[in-house]
Structure formats: C-alpha cells, structure tokens
C-alpha cells in the first residue's frame, strides 16, 4: 500500500465528488485548449495566423465550435444499425474519460483542511486500468464504422482498429521494463520509484517505443491513416454529425492528454521537479501545489510534441506503418525485455561481481560488433533501363507508332436495355480498355 493510497483511503465522500467533477472539467477544458493550441501552433508553423477571432488570441474558438456542433442536425443514415450507431460514440468517449483517473498529479495537498493526494484513484493495478480503457475504446471505433452502413467508415474503422491494437502491443511491452524497475503496477508507486532518477534515461529504448506507440495508439499524424482524407473522407466518423461527432473528437483529444500524462508518469518522473530545481530548499518544490506545475509542464511538452509531429511529418503508407509496428517495435521490445531481465537478474546475484559482469558484457558486445562486420553488403540493384526513349532535352517522348485504343462504348441503363440477348457477350469484351481499366 503506497503513501498515496493511505492518503486517499480516508477521503470524505464530498472530496471524492469534488475531485471527480474537477477531473472531468479539467479533461474537457484541456480538450478545448489543446484543439485551440494545436490550430494556433500549426498556423504559426505554416506562416498564417490560425484562429484569432473568438476571444483573446482566439482562445474561445473551440468552445464556439463545440456549441455550434450541439445545434447542428443529428443525422442517422437509413442504412445504419440504429442502436449500435447511437452507442458507438458513448463507448468511445466514456473509457477515454475514465483512463485519466489513475494518473497522479500531486502527492499531498490540502483541500479545505483535508489532507489528500491529487489523484482520483490509487489502485495496485493502476496501469491495467489505462490499458483496459484503451482496449474498450477500440470497440467504439469498430462499431461506429460497422454500424454506419457505408464503405468509407467501415474501411476507416478497420484500419483504425488494426492500428490501435498493433500499437497497444508495443505500448504494453514498453511498460514491462518500467514495472520491473519500480516493482509495482500502481502509478503513484512508479512515480515514487523515480525520485532518484527518471526512467527515460535508465530505459531509453522503452521510452522510444512508448513515444512511437502513443502516437500510433491515438491515431495522430503521421499515423492518422484512419482519417486519410484523400483516401477515406473522414474515417470511421464520416457518417456522424452533431454531438455524436463531438464525442469522437472529445475522445481523441482526451486520449492524447492521457497518453501524454502517462508518458510523464512512466518515464519523466510524474510530479517530480526537474533536476536543478529539485535541489532547492531540500526538495521544497516537490511538496504542496508545486508538483501540479511540473506535471502540467511535462504533459504540455508531450502535447506540443504531438502538434509538432503533425506539422512536420507527412503521413505514412499503411504497409509501412504496420511493418514499423510488427517487424520493428514488437520484436525489438521483446529482445530489450530479455536483455533488461537478464542484466537485472545478474546484477542482483551475489555470485557475479561487477567486474566479471562488465567483462562478459563487453565480450558479448565485441563479438556482436565483429559479427555485424562479417555480414556482406547488400548487392546494389541493377540500374534500370530507361523505358521511354529520351530526346535531346532529356525528356521522355511518346513512341511515334503509338496506337490509341478505341474508345469503349458508354454503358447507359437505356442502352443496355435496348441490346439484344446475343450482344451481351460482345458488349462485355469491348467495354474493357486494353490496360485493364474498366
């Protein structure tokens, strides 16, 4: 039982209610501000002002958009499966709101004379709550696409689900080393374990995998394939309008805030003050309300990273994206876990001294380096023959004897009806152009 759990155990019910409502309001306000900040920042990065009309610096823009959405017509397509179509946004937004409740924001504060921790729940299985809500959130996406009765949302939801579950594996595997070093699944315990040093320096590979996986998990650029506008219109929420659409949007941004806060908790020391500041006044900045500042600062840094990525990187192709997940992140995470396990086990064993450990480790690394030198270089590919003849200017020119295929007869419903029975076969052979296009 951690210190946080003991503090939370004697919370009166009114304090719990205040915290629940405050956390809910915090998440909704963070969503509004994140959307606004994202549009402003991308605007700055693209040399345009971004939203600047509603309120000071346009800060009320997303609030106005949200209000506007509430007064838009609520459409249900005729082909949609009624109840599942209505349920999907609820299943998407609900888990997103829940998963933030295990994040520790500050260790010990006093609210109206009551000593408590700034965290809604402290459970021995805190991390599993986050993973479980992420898994349930996938149902919202899949069911939204399936129930819309329309091809684009279905394709978008399939892509989205495959993407989220693939990167959930990588994300879960990146947790394993962190859990090993902190010895607990509780989020407050993990933050507590980082008082000596943050885990991103100790476990750089785990952090790298998590950083990639959190972008893939939330369907954000450059991994926003489910919403690839040029291919799939809007993705799984194409058929949704009004507040149902707003719920999907809310879920996406809350998930962004949650994974950023989780990155802070797992790898960046949670509410701990950054290094030079943590020495001031014998850790004075790690008590009271100060930790809220550090926690928010680190979380906002990750949110900025999301926006920066979106403004910088082009979208990946789907096969590249799946290859990155299954052929790079997952196998290397497994190797990394084995390595961390073995090293940790050896370090804790009395029989092996540090000198022997370093000697054997150095030997293994030397053998591996020699082995990589023995791998032959890949043969360079043969230079391809230029297919089109080049004229003097270096531009390809069409061949002089180019045969233009005859224009296929147009298929109209009236024309097809007038055709006799026997002409059906001839029609189907001529309507195909020579290059295979119909």
């Amino acid at each position: 039982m951690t210190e946080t759990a003991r503090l939370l155990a004697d919370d009166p019910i009114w304090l719990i209610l205040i915290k629940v409502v405050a956390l809910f309001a915090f998440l909704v306000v963070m969503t509004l501000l994140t959307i606004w900040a994202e549009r402003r920042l991308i605007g700055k990065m693209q040399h345009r002002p971004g939203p600047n009309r509603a309120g000071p610096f346009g800060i009320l823009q997303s609030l106005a958009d949200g209000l506007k959405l509430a007064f838009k017509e609520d459409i249900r397509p005729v082909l949609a499966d009624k109840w599942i179509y209505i349920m999907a946004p609820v299943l998407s937004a609900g888990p997103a709101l829940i998963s933030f409740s295990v994040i520790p924001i500050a260790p010990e504060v006093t609210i109206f004379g009551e000593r408590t921790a700034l965290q809604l729940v402290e459970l021995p299985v805190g991390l599993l709550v986050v993973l479980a809500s992420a898994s349930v959130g996938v149902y919202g996406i899949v069911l939204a696409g399936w129930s819309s009765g329309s091809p684009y949302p279905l394709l978008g939801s399939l892509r989205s689900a495959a993407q989220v579950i693939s990167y959930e594996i990588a994300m879960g595997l990146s947790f394993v080393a962190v859990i090993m070093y902190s010895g607990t699944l509780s989020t407050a315990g993990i933050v507590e374990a980082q008082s000596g040093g943050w885990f991103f320096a100790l476990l750089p590979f785990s952090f790298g995998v998590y950083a990639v996986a959190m972008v893939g998990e939330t369907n954000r650029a450059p991994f926003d394939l489910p919403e690839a506008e040029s291919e799939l219109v809007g993705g799984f929420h194409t058929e949704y309008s009004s507040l149902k659409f707003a719920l999907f949007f809310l879920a996406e941004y809350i998930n962004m805030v949650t994974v950023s806060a989780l990155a802070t908790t797992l790898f960046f020391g949670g509410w701990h003050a950054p290094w030079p500041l943590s020495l001031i006044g014998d850790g004075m900045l790690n008590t009271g309300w100060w930790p809220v500042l550090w926690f928010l600062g680190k979380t906002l840094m990750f949110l900025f990273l999301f926006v920066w990525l979106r403004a910088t990187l082009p979208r990946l192709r789907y096969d590249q994206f799946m290859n990155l997940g299954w052929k790079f992140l997952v196998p290397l995470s497994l190797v990394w876990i084995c390595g961390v396990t073995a090293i940790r086990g050896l370090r804790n064993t009395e029989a092996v001294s540090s000198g022997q450990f370093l000697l054997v480790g150095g030997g293994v690394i030397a053998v591996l380096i020699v082995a990589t030198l023995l791998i032959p270089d890949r043969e360079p590919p043969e230079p391809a023959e230029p297919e089109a003849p080049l004229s003097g200017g270096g531009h390809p020119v069409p061949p002089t004897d180019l045969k233009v295929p005859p224009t296929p007869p147009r298929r109209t419903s009236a024309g097809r009806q007038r055709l006799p029975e026997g002409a059906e076969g001839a029609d189907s052979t001529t309507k195909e152009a020579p290059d295979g296009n119909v």
Partner: protein
Amino acid sequence: MLDPYIPLVLMFALAFGFAVFSVAIAPLVGPRRYNKAKLDAYECGIEPSPPPVTGGGRMPVAYYLTAMMFILFDIEMVFLFPYAVSADSLGMWGVAAVVLFVVSFGLADIYLWRRGGLDWN
C-alpha cells in the same frame, strides 16, 4: 474507510452519463430538415454502392490475421506483467523462465514472419 474503487465507479457514472446525455439531447436541440439524399451513405457516386458488410461484401483477410496476432501477443504481455512486478524476488530462476518463454514465443513469431504473415499488401 471507503472502498478504493468508489471514485472510479463515480467517474464511470459521470463519464457515461455525460456521453449518454450528449447523444440523447442531440436530436432534441438540433434542427430537423428532411432530405432523402442526406440520409444516404456518404459516397461519390449517384447511387451508393451496397454496404461492404451488410451487403454481403468482403473485407481484407489481413485484418483478421492482425486481430489473431493481437490476441496472442496480448496474452504474452499479460504473462510478462506479473513477472515484472515480482522480478526481484524470483531471481535467476525467474530470468531463465521468462527468457525461455519469450524465446519460444519468438520462434513462432519468426515462423509467422518468414511465412509472410506480417506482410501487408
């Protein structure tokens, strides 16, 4: 002393209550302007094509394979978590066991990879 799960249950109630309220109130506050075309599936053609699932269409089998792989790897993950929590008390015996587990799982993964199960066309 209250059960530690009570705040989570309250958050659950508030989150789903809010979501259900939003979905329920949307048709009441919004306008209603009937238009047959608006209720069709969003597509470029004049007549929408039959929906891929309910219309008897197919979807790429690769998604099915991904889902199966997810289940397998998720179970592997579930086995690794309890080990990681008590890694220090299990000592070298635990290390040997978990490395053996990951390696035997990795062999199946390599087989899947070589047979093209991870390729996406």
